[in-house]
């Protein structure tokens, strides 16, 4: 798989340079140079115009500050003002659907890299191929455009890359004298200990069965060598019944059947888990560092960043589990009337200076190789870099969202196993057929 290779290459590069003791500062250049690298030619040509921009996620203070600075810079360069709207992640697909159908969409939107094929198939994004081969953007490795390139046209520019790792309550681990787990058994033991000490209704390691459940299930299945489906010719062939996938699937369901996570929360997604985490009801869960500001807000400041830390998810079969190769892109919305202005915005936002700061402020890995290299020595980012080296991806097909989120094929399989209605073999056989039907429709 292409993306795996890229991830490997990028991360290897990152680690390699770090090993050389790369002394480059990760400090962003002063704002003045941005104006030069940005499209100065556009000038005040767009004065008085308004551009609508959708950012995904919650408007936590660092993200808001970043957007304020970026939009101020954009106004200085082009004369156009930016109308910014925040869309929480779980609502993204609904908002996109409504916008694409009703025509009241943004001009520019942030978008998850795995969502790009779906929305291109719904003709909701405009191609921006020329933009990616000039200026700063030409430095972004071409193989980062795997999900974004469809039939030779590029529809989105990678803005920041992200993988997931296990977020845990460092203060609880210190208090209960738990070592940072290196193996899956240690994770289970730590989770049990947390539940014993902190209450039965606390999830030691939270089960994710919601819209983004496959981030957790995927990591566990991939770590056993399993995969969802592979393309043979022009047909997807489901691989859910492979013993390797089954092994990962059983680790996943054992979170609930083994009592690490409450039986009553089979449909919670990362946002639901985060809310419970902020309320002292979760010890560990798989997520990315963009959750930390939200946790501080949700807990009204009671849970602070220094009480939290990450470790790479250990694979049950040993070593670190591969994570989903995630990333946030930025794209031009298909029905925009300001195509030129929207292109200018993307050019500025994904320029080296602003993309680097986007990644840094958002807790993501930068898409520019040399910046990534300089970040690998950062202790906060190290777990992600480790996961990044092994990052994998879901089937690159526009119908994946239907299988992974809408029809929740594997979430339902897991539920039927957890509730004892089917064995793992039966549930996976049914799911496999359904997955093939959906991907090949």
């Amino acid at each position: 798989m292409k993306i795996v290779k890229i991830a490997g290459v990028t991360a290897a590069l990152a680690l390699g340079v770090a090993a050389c003791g790369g002394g480059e500062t990760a400090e962003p250049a002063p704002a003045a140079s941005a104006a030069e690298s940005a499209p100065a030619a556009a000038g005040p040509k767009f004065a008085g115009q308004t551009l609508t921009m959708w950012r995904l996620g919650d408007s936590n203070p660092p993200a808001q500050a970043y957007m304020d600075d970026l939009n101020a810079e954009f106004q200085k360069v082009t004369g156009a003002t930016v109308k910014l709207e925040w869309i929480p992640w779980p609502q993204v697909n609904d908002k996109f659907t409504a916008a694409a159908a009703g025509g009241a969409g943004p001009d520019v939107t942030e978008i998850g890299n795995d969502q790009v094929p779906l929305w291109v198939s719904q003709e909701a994004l405009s191609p921006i191929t020329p933009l990616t081969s000039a200026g700063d953007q030409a430095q972004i490795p071409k193989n980062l455009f795997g999900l974004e390139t469809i039939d030779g046209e590029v529809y989105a520019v990678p803005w920041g890359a992200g993988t997931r790792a296990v977020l845990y309550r460092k203060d609880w681990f210190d208090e209960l004298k738990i070592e940072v787990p290196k193996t899956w058994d240690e994770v289970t033991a730590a989770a049990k200990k947390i539940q014993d000490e902190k209450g039965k209704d606390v999830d030691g390691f939270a089960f994710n069965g919601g819209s983004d459940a496959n981030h957790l299930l995927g990591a566990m299945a991939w770590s056993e060598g399993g995969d969802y489906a592979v393309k043979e010719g022009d047909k997807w062939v489901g691989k859910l019944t492979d013993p390797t996938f089954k092994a990962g699937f059983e680790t996943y369901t054992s979170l609930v059947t083994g009592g690490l996570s409450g039986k009553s929360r089979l449909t919670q997604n990362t946002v639901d888990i985060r809310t419970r985490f902020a309320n002292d009801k979760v010890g560990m869960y798989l997520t990315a560092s963009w959750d930390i500001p939200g946790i501080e807000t949700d807990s009204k400041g009671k849970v602070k960043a220094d009480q939290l830390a990450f470790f790479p998810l250990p694979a049950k079969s040993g070593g670190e589990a591969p994570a989903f190769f995630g990333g946030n892109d930025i794209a031009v919305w298909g029905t925009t009337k300001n195509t030129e202005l929207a292109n200018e915005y993307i050019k500025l936002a994904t320029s080296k200076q602003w993309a680097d700061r986007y990644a840094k402020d958002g807790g993501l890995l930068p898409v520019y190789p040399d910046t990534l290299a300089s970040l690998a020595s950062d202790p906060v980012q190290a777990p992600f870099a480790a996961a990044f080296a092994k990052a994998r991806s879901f089937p690159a097909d526009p119908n994946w969202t239907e299988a992974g989120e809408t029809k929740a094929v594997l979430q339902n399989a897991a539920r039927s196993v957890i509730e004892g209605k089917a064995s793992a073999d039966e549930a996976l056989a049914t799911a496999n057929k359904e997955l093939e039907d959906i991907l090949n429709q």
Partner: protein
Amino acid sequence: MTDTSIARRGGGHASAPSGRPRRSHRPQKASGLNPKLIPYVLLIPGVLVMAALLLYPMIQAGIMSFQKVGIPQIRDVNPRPADWVGWENYTKIFENDIFWSALRNTLVFAFVTVSLTLIVGTGVGVLLQQLSKRMSTVLIVGIMFAWAVPPVAQGVIWRWLFDAEAGIVNWALNLLPDFLSTALFGRADWTGVPWLNEAYTVYIALIMTVVWASFPFIAVSVLAGLKSIPNELYEAARVDGSSPWRTFRTITFPLLKPVFAVLTILSIIWDFKVFSQLYVLLNGPTNREAFNLSMFSYAEAFRPPPKMGSGAAIAVILTIILLIVTAFYVRQMIKSEEVQ
């Protein structure tokens, strides 16, 4: 004020003293228009509104159910023509397991909920009539609050009540003596019992939610019906030594039959298309085994990738089922009226 029933029946005439002289002029005034046409003219605004808001979308949904419709077909900026797929949407739905479980859920839910709503509503209505006027007013106002709660809020309230850890339902069940709880439900410890995971228990919660919110309307309607039954009949029954149950069966029920007929049809229609409460209880279309037809239609039509054709097809099927059930019931009703 002296005789309200007459005033009510008089309807328009109630406002009348000053209207009396005008009445003699009326035929002249209407002479500009053929009196036979007047009802139709008066219907025009209503029909126009219905046509725009109901008829057009219904026809559109009917057409869409034979097409493949996604976002590119419905957007307002250069939309693409929709492909005609014939019966494919329908055949695909019939092959889908989710459809059959959704159909089962919809029918069983509607049957149970309509029965429970009518039974509870009638019971409360009859009891309300036994109360003093002030007490019954207080109670009516109280239960009407439940009826006035918007569907989404109903869902949220009952979702919290049925919460596994913090919910009052599990707390209350835990208060039961262990032997009683074990005898009734086969378990004594209710801590952390998840109600909203499995289809079966989700529907128990949903039935409670919907019955709770809809019985007040039935109760108040029945009460209004009861007040119209002349007291002499009850007196006669009492003189003849009739038991309360027999009085209800032979006097109250037959006289209220038209009221029950209307309430039943309304309840069937309402309970067939319950959506918001289920959406909230399930936290969106998550557990597809607990879908009903409305939820299935919504998930198909609006969840990405949107398949509005098959969503429309499910809606058409739901409408047809509803029409059959209602038509059957109306027929029964008319028949029994004829017999009388």
